[in-house]
């Protein structure tokens, strides 16, 4: 398809993900309104905002999973549809039925389906990729385990391994840290760092404000509209958070950390 020559000099200058004026509305309510931003290559980006701010919806709209009434998305300077194979998507864990009759390795293998095209089946090469992906998230021992017998954190790691098996350049992850154990959280972070070192770009829907500074390079603050976007040290401050979360945020100035209150 649109395969770029490897030695093209301005490759890094093209943004991995460029959204322009994305607007999504269900019935009368605008859920996401006129959101525009540009990601830089090789960065870990957090997408944060209160409940109902439209974080997941924005992600899905960019992937074409929910219809946007306006807006455009380009991936590495090309229209989104032509770049699907360069995008890895990690949906929320609750979005699938874990009673599905399959094992962990098989789920990871699904990551290779997009690349395989219409008729090819996953072969030995794909299996190797899948096993390698599983071991990267510390799940190699569970390859043959039925997926319903995995803990929540383990299921999340299987999902991440599946995204790795996609061998994408840009990753979009929907709340990978939601409800996982400490071991999984650590595994995810290690993985994100590795991806970053490989020059990949990762956009993560995130809800834990206390870890944003430690984990991420850039941050997008969303509450239906995009409130701010930029490097963590410039954008992630009291004023911007107040504007994003409204009165729902209290700061514990002493400890320097923040907690959210109310709903």
């Amino acid at each position, binding site marked *: 398809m649109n395969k770029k020559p490897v030695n093209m000099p301005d490759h890094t200058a093209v943004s991995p993900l460029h959204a322009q004026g994305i607007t999504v509305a269900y019935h009368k309510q605008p859920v996401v309104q006129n959101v525009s931003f540009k990601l830089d290559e090789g960065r870990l980006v957090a997408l944060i905002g209160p409940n109902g701010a439209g974080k997941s919806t924005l992600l*899905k709209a960019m*992937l*074409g*999973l929910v219809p946007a009434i306006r807006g455009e998305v380009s991936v590495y300077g090309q229209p989104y*549809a032509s770049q*699907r*194979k360069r*995008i890895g*998507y990690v*949906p929320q864990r609750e*979005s*699938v*039925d874990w009673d*599905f*009759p*399959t*094992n962990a390795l098989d*789920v990871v293998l*699904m990551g290779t*389906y*997009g690349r*395989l095209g*219409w*008729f090819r*089946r*996953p072969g030995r090469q794909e299996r190797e990729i899948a096993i390698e992906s599983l071991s990267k998230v510390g799940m190699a021992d569970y390859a043959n385990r*039925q997926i319903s017998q995995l803990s929540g954190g383990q299921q999340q790691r299987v999902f991440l391994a*599946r995204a790795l098996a*996609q061998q994408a350049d840009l990753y979009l992850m929907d709340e990978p840290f939601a409800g996982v154990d400490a071991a999984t959280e650590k595994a995810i972070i290690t993985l994100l760092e590795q991806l970053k070192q490989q020059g990949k770009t990762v956009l993560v829907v995130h809800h834990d404000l206390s870890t944003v500074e430690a984990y991420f390079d850039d941050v997008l603050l969303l509450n239906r509209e995009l409130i701010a976007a930029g490097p963590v040290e410039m954008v992630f401050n009291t004023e911007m958070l107040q504007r994003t979360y409204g009165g729902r945020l209290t700061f514990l100035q002493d400890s320097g950390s923040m907690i959210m209150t109310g709903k």
Partner: protein
Amino acid sequence: MSSDFWIMLTAALMSASCGLLGCFLILRKMALIGDAISHAVLPGIAIAFLLSGGRDSMAMMIGATALGLIAVFLIQWLQSSGIQSDASIGIIFTALFAVGVILVSLNARNIDLDLDCVLFGEIAYVQWDTWMMNGIDMGPRSVWMLGFALLVILTLLGLFYKQFKITAFDPAMAAACGIPVMLFHYLLMGMVSMTSVASFESVGAILVVGMLVIPAATAYLLTDRLGRMLIYSVIVGVVSSIVGYYTAYILNASIGGSIVTIAGIFFIITFLLSPRHGILFRKLQQKRIASSMTSN
């Protein structure tokens, strides 16, 4: 060839087709859509009957498949307008089935299609209804129709197994990968419609759903792998149809009814005794855990 042979071949082909499709239906939580489709194809059959003026298999296949897809489309349309999925299914399948019943009743004298046959099927007459080509008897028409349906199913599932699997497990991810989720959805629905109409004459409209759901659910309790689930489902379906046929013969009752009843009995046995997911096994396991805790 003996009549038993043709009847059992018909039943086996029907159960194999239904068993394969049923697995995908229950994994996608669309068992009741399958029920709706098997009712909704009735007007399609009746219209094809009236237009073609006889039992033209091809016209019936096309008419019924079209109606099945229309039903799915209408159900989705109602759901997207905010009606619960159960209610949407209930409204659409009863409406289409009502149209079908009225068409059949009003034309009962003109066409050779009676309501009882449509509902319960008459697998016992399969062998008398043969397909003549150039004056040569090619064997029972039902066998040809069901064979064709099974061939289509095997071809499509064989070619696109990975797509059907991923769209059943994680449609959002499939869509993000660029797999045309809607196309495979409608392909599956089209196959269910086609199988419904092909099975119609042998087991009837209402019992098709039984063969779609019961063997697949039985298989679902026996294995944790999709590939094996498909195989088990076919086996349960075929065995039920053979045992069901002899039961009906002994009881002097409807073959379709007894096939589904036997399949239901297989399900109950599996539900109680399955080594992985049966109630008894689970209870034993719980007891073992409880006793090991007290002994510690």
